């Protein structure tokens, strides 16, 4: 729907502003990715899909894919449940409070994942804070260990990725005029109706970016699972890491890396599409 007389987007000189980014991404990301793709399809005698067939025909590898997606999904769900209301609180807070909240969300990002994972290791121990708390309030009868369990991994990873859910939602919520909801109320809409019909659709773009960030980071995390759940729980990225670093099996490594990439990209694309369907134009 370009207005007649408006410059074609390709002739618009503003497009040139993207040149440095495009160059940078192509060199450090695009070409290596292409190389990885080619590697995964190249056999000793020429192009082949054999590595994929071999990978997919092993039931253990389906378990690995299942592990990867399940953990990614849980981390995203936990981040969303905690992050969505937090983004509203952040957007609607007063100036000073907002600064304090932003700093407390952004500052932890400067601490490396390794340090945080080590800290979680202490928190999730049998005599750690979580276990003591749950025994204290009577949910557990005796101290239990959350470390090296899937629940522990989800808790730890959600903590590390939470800012990537809050910040995109916050940036959208900030732009929503609070009077929209009030207008709905004056017209007799219930709070639930106002939320589902006004607020939620307006925040969907932020939610989709948050989900895309958190999901793609949690399916590809490597250090966090190796510290919080160990070698007995393989995911696609730990398998990729091991193939390259230990087994020197570049083909297996490239195959698992491509599968991970395809899975992550398709889920992100699908969720964006779904959000557009649900929320109209986003």
């Amino acid at each position: 729907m370009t207005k007649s007389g408006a410059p074609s987007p390709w002739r618009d000189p503003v497009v040139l502003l993207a040149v440095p980014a495009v160059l940078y991404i192509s060199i450090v990301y695009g070409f290596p990715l292409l190389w990885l793709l080619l590697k995964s399809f190249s056999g000793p005698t020429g192009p082949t899909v054999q590595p994929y067939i071999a990978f997919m025909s092993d039931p253990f590898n389906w378990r690995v894919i299942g592990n990867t997606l399940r953990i990614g999904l849980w981390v995203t769900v936990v981040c969303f449940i905690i992050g969505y209301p937090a983004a509203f609180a952040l957007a609607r807070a007063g100036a000073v409070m907002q600064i304090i909240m932003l700093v407390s969300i952004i500052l932890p990002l400067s601490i490396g994942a390794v340090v945080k994972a080590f800290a979680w290791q202490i928190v999730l121990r049998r005599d750690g804070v979580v276990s003591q708390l749950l025994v204290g309030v009577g949910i557990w009868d005796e101290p239990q260990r959350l470390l090296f369990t899937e629940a522990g991994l989800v808790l730890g990873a959600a903590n590390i990725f939470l800012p990537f859910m809050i910040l995109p939602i916050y940036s959208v919520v900030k732009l929503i005029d609070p009077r929209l909801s009030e207008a709905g109320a004056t017209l007799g809409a219930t709070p639930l109706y106002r939320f589902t019909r006004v607020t939620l659709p307006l925040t969907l773009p932020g939610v989709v970016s948050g989900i895309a960030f958190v999901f793609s980071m949690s399916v590809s995390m490597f250090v966090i699972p190796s510290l919080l759940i160990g070698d007995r729980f393989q995911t696609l990225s730990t398998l990729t890491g091991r193939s390259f670093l230990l087994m020197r099996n570049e083909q297996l490594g490239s195959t698992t890396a491509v599968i991970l990439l395809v899975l992550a990209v398709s889920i992100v694309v699908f969720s964006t599409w779904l959000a557009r369907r649900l929320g109209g134009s986003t």
Partner: protein
Amino acid sequence: MIKSKAIVLNRRAVLAAAAGAATVALAAPRIVRAQSKELVVGGAASHKNFVETVIAPVVEKKYSCKIVFEGTRSLVNLEKMQKNKDKQYLSIVMMDDPVMIPAVTEGLLEKLTPAKVPNLATLKPGTVHMDGMWCNYLQPWLGIAYNPKVMKTAPTSWAEIYDPKHKGRIILPSLQNTEGLANLFIASFLATGKPMAEAAKDIDAGFKKLVTLKPNLLTAYTQMPQAYNLLEQGEGFMISSAISQVALERKGTGAPVDIAAPKEGIFSMPSGVALVKGAPQPELAAAFINEMIGTEVQTKLSAATFSLPTNKDAPVPAGMPTGVTIHPTDWQAVAAGRADWVKRWDRDMAM
């Protein structure tokens, strides 16, 4: 115009000066090198300290030469030799035994002979490999590390970790870590009762036994600091198949860690040294290895690294196990089977 000419001149001058400086910088080390014999030793980054403080001073004094140590990883050393096959600059490589095998296959190593390295004759049996292609200069040993605060009596047998009372308290190295391999051999030994050398071949029996350890497992680690962290905090009670060097270093800093040598015997970690084929200073390189496995260096080296000497005549340092069988590892079998073993480990040991 004058200004721009001046700039051109300046640029030329700068270029000329830079080229001159580069020539001097490149030529200088050669001149220096020509003045004294220099021997380049490739090894692991963690070897740097003992090579430079224990081995190099002895060799440098005796042969009036200079030892240059390049610390990296075994596989990188292998790549360095592969890439410089026609013009090697490393004279000696210190690498993990499993990495020595491809180096031998590719013809990168020069055989050690008693004529070149007389001290070879003084080495313990099982420490000279593939007919002299490389030898072991140390035996860091594998035992059971434990936390003496939670384990009032030290473990005496490898079977101890299977005791149901240690539910969720045992830490194993992943099979992808070299120190993890011993657990597989011991498991087979415990299950079959065969002599260790034979049991180590029965990998299937080993896995079947290892699987029964799952209820007792706290975790299988790939990052060693994490394992020690868990042990020292008391979340884990024992690390089965722990490296003496690491455990005793932690103990030395006052951490609640000790290591026991079980009655069934202990294993040694890889620690190979070899001559690079077609390398500079071959006589000096042979002399370096000869000193390295000689009594004087071995005595100092084993104490400094909490390991066992490979030289029969060197005394076992205080605090090290004596009279315990040291089971050799068949690294060729490891190299051939490891990828499949790791695959099976993933499947059998998964949570």
